[in-house]
């Protein structure tokens, strides 16, 4: 029995593809018919965006904007309630010495930590609770388990769900399975926004990144996200650039705007600013908003805070002058 949501997603997909049945061959020929990505040219474009020089007032704006786009993340087997509530406290007042510091967009945790995060953050803070689900990070579980995982996080109060796609299915050309799983998870999400993790480090080619982005958007994902953070390479600039081109072209094709979240490996303010420049020049300023662009990061926040203090006081303080509530165990 198919639910109304499922039918909506399927019929919209059929409409976009112009087919009467959404078969795997139909999905394959659509995805493989997308324009290719030239690796050399794509990486050269990303490198040229990295040479933009963002100074003074524009740097201040960029630092605050980047802070507001962070999904402050802890995804460790060693996470405890204390550690998660510490992270939430950090999100509520990132820099106690300067209360004008913006709050990050969300805290991102495993599903079982959602109640702790929800409780610490309360309801009026503006900081969302995001939970990874669907057998994160490998995605190797039955659909029933993935849906239960998602439903559990949503019922515990998650505002956003970060799911992983079945990379095995994707790489073997079984696009229909990937599509169906995203549709199902989206249905279970209800009102929660769904971020679809492509795990680009396992997809390897930029052509695959573009195809997986389109497949996730076709299935109704609200965000496309690069990585779990558990696989290297994670969020590279060229991969993010390809995804930004995909959401830009998708909006032209369908009128629907989809967000982008690079996650993993973005640690410095300089990196974050380069990503913002790329958002600005590839997707456009409509995406320069925490609703449409996020950084999945943990250590990035403190570097941004250091830079922010430096711009305010004119001097570098040092890492010990910024509170670190979730130091790495390693």
């Amino acid at each position: 029995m198919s639910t109304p949501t499922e039918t909506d997603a399927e019929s919209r997909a059929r409409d976009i593809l112009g087919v009467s049945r959404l078969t795997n061959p139909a999905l394959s020929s659509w995805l493989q018919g997308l324009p290719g990505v030239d690796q050399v040219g794509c990486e050269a474009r990303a490198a040229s965006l990295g040479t933009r020089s963002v100074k003074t007032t524009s740097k201040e704006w960029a630092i605050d904007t980047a802070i507001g786009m962070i999904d402050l993340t802890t995804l460790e087997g060693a996470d405890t309630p204390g550690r998660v509530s510490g992270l939430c406290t950090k999100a509520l007042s990132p820099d106690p010495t300067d209360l004008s510091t913006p709050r990050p967009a969300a805290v991102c945790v495993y599903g079982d930590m959602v109640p702790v995060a929800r409780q610490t953050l309360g309801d009026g803070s503006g900081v969302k609770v995001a939970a990874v689900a669907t057998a994160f990070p490998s995605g190797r579980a039955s659909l029933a388990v993935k849906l239960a995982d998602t439903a559990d996080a949503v019922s515990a109060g998650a505002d956003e769900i970060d799911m992983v796609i079945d990379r095995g299915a994707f790489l073997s050309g079984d696009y229909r399975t990937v599509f169906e799983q995203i549709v199902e998870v989206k249905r279970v999400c209800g009102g929660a926004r769904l971020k679809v993790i492509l795990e680009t480090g396992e997809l390897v080619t930029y052509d695959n990144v573009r195809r997986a982005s389109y497949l996730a958007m076709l299935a109704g994902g609200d965000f496309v996200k690069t990585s779990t953070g558990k696989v290297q390479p994670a969020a590279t600039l060229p991969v993010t650039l390809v995804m930004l081109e995909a959401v830009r072209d998708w909006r032209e094709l369908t009128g629907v705007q989809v967000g982008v979240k690079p996650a993993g490996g973005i640690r410095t303010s300089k990196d974050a600013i380069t990503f913002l420049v790329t958002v600005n020049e590839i997707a456009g300023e409509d995406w320069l908003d925490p609703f449409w662009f996020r950084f999945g990061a943990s250590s990035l926040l403190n570097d941004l805070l250091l830079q922010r203090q430096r711009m305010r006081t004119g001097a570098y303080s040092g890492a010990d002058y910024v509170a670190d509530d979730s130091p790495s165990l390693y």
Partner: protein
Amino acid sequence: MPTFEYAPAPESRAVVDIASSYGLFINGEFTDSQGGGTFKTISPATEEVLAEVTEASAEDVDRAVAAARTAYTRVWSRMSGADRGKYLFRIARILQERAREFAVLESLDNGKPIKESRDVDVPTAAAHFFYHAGWADKLDYAGLGPDPRPHGVVGQVIPWNFPLLMLAWKIAPALATGNTVVLKPAETTPLTALLFAQVCQQADLPAGVVNIITGAGPTGQALVGHEDVDKVAFTGSTGVGKAIARTIAGTRKKATLELGGKAANIVFDDAPLDQAVEGIVNGIFFNQGHVCCAGSRLLVQESIADQVEARLKRRLETLRVGDPLDKNTDVGAINSRAQLDRITELSEAGEAEGATRWSPECELPSKGFWFRPTVFTGVSQTHRIAQEEIFGPVLSVLTFRTPGEAVAKANNTPYGLSAGIWTEKGSRILWMADQLRAGVVWANTFNKFDPTSPFGGYKESGYGREGGRHGLAAYVTTGDAT
């Protein structure tokens, strides 16, 4: 007001000292002219006078050629290749050490964006010296023929679009092969060549091996026509190239001429579209389109023409036109009033002949020489903007339906310097490259230069090659030839 406004990020001018006036670099030192006048060189971005430069007279050319001849006979032709190589390596290293100085000066005098002088012109110039330094002691093994020997004194005249880089393309192979040089930079961009003269002093290059004389057309004519010059190397317009060919006809002089172009950038419907759009932008708006091999004609397959045009226009909206010294500037100033007038005239002709003109919204500075990036659609082969070299930021868009038609249109020009092909089909790239009458064919990229790769033209784009082993061949004679 844009959401993300980039604050000005100007490179500091303080790194470079510009003298109020410059003499001529002859026989290892700066000397006053004998009977020549002076002229001013300005910054095209502001029209500010940067320095006063000497206009070399015929007597000055005589002195420079004589100094080069003496250095050739007494020092440079007798020196071992390994020792010549040491000087070239030293020059290359100094260029790298003083890279910021050269980049700032080049952007000031030429008007090109600092990111291009910093990331392309100066590093590539140094790379040319490094590359040719390595050849200096290996010429016998370069496959040039038996017993490669230098010509003697080389007269070189270079253009204003890549002043330092063209100097490097000319001087590095000449010195590596044992020739001595008299070089004349363009009258609108003499300053980096004069700074290079100081580098020659700093490297203790023997006096007279490199002589740099500034001036305009008459100085260049006196140089290429001088009876003691053994070889002429010229980069510039086809008109001047033809005049040089006439001047030296019937003399013993060898010549290489690198002239104009009207390159086709050919985009097939299976191309990687986002990268193709980057390649189109890079092909025609790099260096304000002041590039002889610029992809000034876009040939796009009819089935994707609308899509490519829309993507191209969206991309051009993000180009930043303005202060060449700002690190975020993508398109700088037009090099001179005369060039601006020519670009303006040809663009007006394009409109008058019925093509559709489009430019992104962008504010231009009130002083200096500026031209908006411009795209003409609905262009046909007979339009002047499809035939004549504009040498500015103006793209003419034409369409084609079959590979054969693309080749025919691409080749239907008196020029033949370069071409670009955009397709994911490897076999088509090879087939096209074989059909195109162009010296350089780029596949899924454009405007890429490397010292190891020969560069030069077919037809009215000139003859001879620069770079690679082929470039060395132009500076030596082999076997029993005299």
